[in-house]
């Protein structure tokens, strides 16, 4: 049960632990901010010159998303980690759903309708608005303004405040304020990922490429063994994004974060990672 979820928690914690280990070993690996497309753009407009040295890391991260899908969101991002750790039995996914397939209940006794038709999708347009505003504000005030709210920045800010406490014994308010902001963003603003996260804008663009790459792995139900026609909606029910692998269109798969819950729970092991 929930093997994949524990694996995701493990991977995301391992990333935080690795960054902390680098701090104590004095290896300047940096936090995820060193790979962030939003930070790159913010610095460019806030300081009026492009931070070229950041570009290789940013492109590498976007290349990973283009090849493997939005795996960063499921497996690495502290937002998903927070959800998986404190979200109870059914933590919400990117689109703010609970992983309990909204469309599956509408069947009224008979076989349910197509879950993919009932999904809420992440919105590039909403994230684009946030990105445009944050860049405009950064341009005017001359500092990267979104980083003060970013869940990723808040998670690492807490981590480094703790490491500073160990070294200098000087606690700061951020030890309380940052975790509180992070929890508020994840649990009060449930659609943070679907409607706000500007990293999601870049990842969404890369995911558009991903679903079109013939060799890039995507979860698809193998029609030979899939029980969709018999009324099974297990994949859509467990999927944090309500995606049904039997009927998913490329647009639906753009929101897939590669969490692999569908693969784990399919009763006939019909879900395969294929290029399609």
């Amino acid at each position: 049960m929930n093997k994949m979820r524990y694996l995701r928690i493990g991977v995301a914690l391992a990333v935080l632990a690795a960054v902390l280990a680098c701090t104590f070993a004095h290896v300047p690996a940096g936090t995820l901010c060193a790979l962030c497309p939003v930070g790159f753009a913010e610095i460019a407009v806030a300081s009026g010159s492009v931070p070229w040295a950041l570009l290789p890391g940013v492109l590498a991260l976007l290349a990973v998303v283009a090849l493997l899908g939005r795996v960063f969101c499921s497996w690495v991002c502290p937002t998903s980690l927070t959800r998986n750790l404190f979200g109870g039995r059914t933590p919400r996914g990117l689109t703010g759903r609970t992983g309990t397939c909204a469309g599956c209940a509408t069947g009224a006794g008979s076989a349910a309708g197509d879950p993919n038709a009932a999904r809420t999708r992440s919105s590039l347009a909403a994230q684009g608005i946030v990105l445009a505003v944050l860049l405009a504000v950064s341009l005017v005030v001359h500092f990267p303004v979104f980083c003060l709210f970013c869940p990723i920045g808040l998670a690492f800010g807490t981590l480094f405040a703790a490491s500073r406490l160990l070294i200098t014994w000087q606690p700061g308010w951020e030890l309380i304020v940052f975790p509180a902001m992070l929890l508020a963003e994840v649990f009060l603003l449930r659609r943070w990922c679907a409607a706000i996260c500007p990293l999601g804008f870049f990842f969404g663009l890369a995911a558009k490429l991903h679903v079109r790459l013939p060799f890039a792995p995507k979860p698809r139900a193998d029609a030979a063994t899939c029980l969709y026609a018999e009324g099974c909606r297990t994949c859509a029910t467990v999927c944090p994004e309500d995606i049904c692998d039997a009927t998913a269109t490329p647009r639906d798969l753009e929101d897939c974060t590669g969490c692999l819950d569908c693969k784990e729970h399919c009763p006939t092991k019909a879900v395969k990672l294929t290029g399609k």
Partner: protein
Amino acid sequence: MQGMKEKSSGQATAGSGAAAPLGASAADGATRADDATRSGRRPAGMSRRQFVMAGAAGAVLVGAGGLGAFARDTAQAAYLRPPGAEDEAHLLARCDRCQRCVQACPYDLVQPRPLTWDFPAVGTPELIYKDGYCDFCMKCVEACPTGALSWDAPSAANIGVAKVVSDACVAWDWGGCTVCADRCPVEGAITLDDRGRPHVDEVLCDGCGLCEMVCPAPSLRAYDASTAEKGIYVVSRQSAAAAVPGALTSAELEELCRTRRTDAGTGTTAGAGAAGSREKGGSRE
């Protein structure tokens, strides 16, 4: 992107149109908008709730940007930054708090700023000379990927300047202590006057922090909250404290060490050549 916006605004209209006759709340409207998505009419669009959230997030960002700029401008702070920080404005514009400089420093001197009223500076690097001093290994500058710390900045060879605190320095009232002058690796940066009190040459001192680290005043004096702990502190060359000639009192240091000078920048290159006169043989603690 453009196409999506058009579609989504159409969707918002459809949502409110459906909800209005029922006198529905915003939440109902959002449900209707979701329903519109459900029917598959606008596959790539934005639900009304998503639009409201994005708008609210934008408003918060505008507010936070304004408040942050106000906080930064009223605080006018000049923190002691790692070598290679050009000035406060440049560092704040370029640092994304990736913490690579923090990780790079072999002596843990570079630490993220704590959260204070000057909140845009939170997480950006500052130097803490509690258990170490800077030997200008420049690993922090090498590590910085954003150019917030750079080799070209005047502070790359000159981090700041040491200020003697007259009511905390032991040599000032008891006499006899010469630890800072003995240990300073820059010849002539600390000299003793005829009463044995240390004076810092503001041109020669490069702000390495060795004197601050070794100052024994905290262990020699009984704890007194009214004076600074140590008898000598390194401050940013942009700070108002750096502009005051000679020694400071604890109260003056407290008030001025993080206040930016109005003529900030004019004095920053004064001691840039000092690194050349560094003694190479200074051993580490």
